[in-house]
């Protein structure tokens, strides 16, 4: 399949294999349906002057780790707000096109129903935490669902364990470091046992080490629990290694959609102003000087490995 990429006034035609609408990671199991399927989504905020989403069609398979990126204001956050029904139910306006998430048509189901399928973690955990203790924060959503006390206890302990904050469960969230707060926010969402978790720049307030730890928690949720992860992120140097699907948006549209190595390899990606990992940039520069590496490295470890092979020759 060929994707036509429209960039500013130029037309770029990239021969890019798109993920077929209905296949799983490898081989393609025709039985497996997409967990998120958007067809020709279009949306404008009430009072807005231009549409925030235009003709957005994507398909995300269950269990994928997706990085959603693109220039700021490109519609990433707006798209994420559609996944759990905040758009249109909370923000208002009309969501055109079709969006099915975990088998539910978003326009036909209320936010509280969608919230049990899709958890959202925001950039700044301060805005998400409010209880007097970590465990109360984590239990809050479950209490609202009217779950039995014992079950709540079990779920909360489980979520605290997985996010590595069991030892601070009695502390007040506002006393914690940014990284710990973000784990509490993740645990609160995780406790609802959603099938899909959406992280909107979850590490931008954290230092590099704190960020790395959060990415590892997210990666565990994906690889160990099979939760479908959608990570909105600019810092691709840090996050690329975990992803198996990259979606780049520009100006409310899907600009590129595919496998990370393919996407970062494209000149178009650079032109879109997406900060491809430095390892990929180095690969590009070496390629231009006729130095061929074994593959496109998306982490420093891969780059080191490929370079060692070349240097040994």
């Amino acid at each position: 399949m060929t994707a036509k990429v429209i960039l500013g006034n130029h037309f770029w035609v990239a021969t890019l294999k798109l993920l077929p609408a209905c296949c799983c990671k490898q081989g393609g199991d025709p039985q497996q349906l997409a967990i998120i399927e958007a067809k020709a989504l279009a949306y404008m905020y009430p009072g807005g002057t231009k549409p925030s989403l235009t003709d957005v069609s994507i398909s995300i398979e269950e269990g994928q780790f997706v990085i959603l990126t693109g220039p700021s204001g490109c519609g990433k956050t707006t798209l994420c707000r559609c996944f759990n029904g905040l758009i249109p139910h909370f923000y208002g306006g009309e969501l055109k096109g079709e969006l099915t998430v975990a088998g539910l048509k978003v326009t036909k189901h209320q936010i509280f129903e969608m919230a049990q399928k899709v958890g959202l973690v925001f950039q700044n955990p301060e805005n998400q935490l409010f209880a007097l203790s970590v465990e109360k924060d984590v239990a809050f959503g479950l209490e609202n669902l009217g779950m039995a006390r014992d079950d709540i206890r079990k779920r909360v302990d489980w979520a605290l364990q997985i996010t590595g904050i069991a030892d601070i469960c009695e502390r007040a969230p506002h006393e914690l470091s940014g990284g710990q707060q973000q784990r509490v926010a993740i645990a609160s969402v995780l406790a609802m046992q959603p099938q899909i978790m959406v992280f909107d720049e979850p590490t931008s307030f954290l230092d590099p080490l704190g960020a790395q730890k959060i990415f590892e928690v997210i990666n565990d949720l994906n690889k160990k629990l099979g939760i479908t992860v959608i990570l909105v992120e600019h810092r691709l140097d840090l996050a690329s290694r975990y992803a198996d699907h990259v979606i780049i948006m520009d100006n409310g549209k899907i600009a590129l959609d595919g496998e990370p190595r393919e996407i970062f390899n494209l000149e178009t990606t650079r032109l879109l102003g997406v900060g491809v990992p430095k390892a990929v940039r180095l690969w590009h520069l070496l390629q231009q000087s006729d130095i061929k590496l074994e593959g496109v490295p998306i982490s420093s470890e891969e780059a080191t490995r490929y370079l060692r092979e070349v240097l040994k020759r």
Partner: protein
Amino acid sequence: MIEVKDVYFTYPTGVEALKGVSLTISDGEFVAIMGQNGAGKTTLVKHFNGLLKPARGGVLVDGVSTKDVSVAKLARTVGFVFQNPDHQLFSETVQEEIAFGLRNFGFDEATSEKRVTWALNLLDLTEYRKTSPFMLSGGERKRVALASVLAWDPKIVILDEPTIGQDHRQKENLRQFIVHLNSQGKTVVVVTHDVEFVAECGPRVVLMTGGAIVADGEAKRILTDAAVTLTASIVPPQITQIFLGLKDFGLPVDVIDVSEAKRVLLEYLKGGSGA
């Protein structure tokens, strides 16, 4: 010039945020203050514009102790752009937000209008002139906060985590913009934990941990010193990480930039084939 002399500071909660910090920043310097969250970076720079006063020691801005002047007066010289723009923004439109500071410093309407237009243009915000700052994305709000400080043209500009929420292109713009400000003689102090950004800018790096300065020098030297970065819980730039894994080939490890990395590798390969 900013002179920090053996400054100690403890928050009312009992947290000792600064433990004997001494530092001199000369006019026209470009300094990145780095370190993990809680290292004392923001506490330190809040001393530069008098928002915080040292419990012990002293801070002099252009020779005057911050204890002897009001924050409002200092702000004319030392512009501070906060990490979270929501702590700074409050006006109904972007234009009013930027005009507010100018009015407070007594600029006349005509000059104020000119400066607003200039700042909007500089930070690519012209289309949002009449928009409420709260309608904008996080990254855009940060640019509004920056525009509102730059509008009154302070001599020293402090940016607390300016790259948060900025996409790649805006970071590149910000980098060029800071280099431009700096080349015009402004002193720029950036508080950041964005290692890749610092690697691209190449400023003087002051590395903090536990309320003290642990290293101070050229970016290229500090960011590639594995022992130092480990102490401060900083992850070296990706390019440096790659070169740390190639040490045994006799390649240098103090490489932070992609083009330099290419040059070093090509040289090695050329030398190898010739031998």
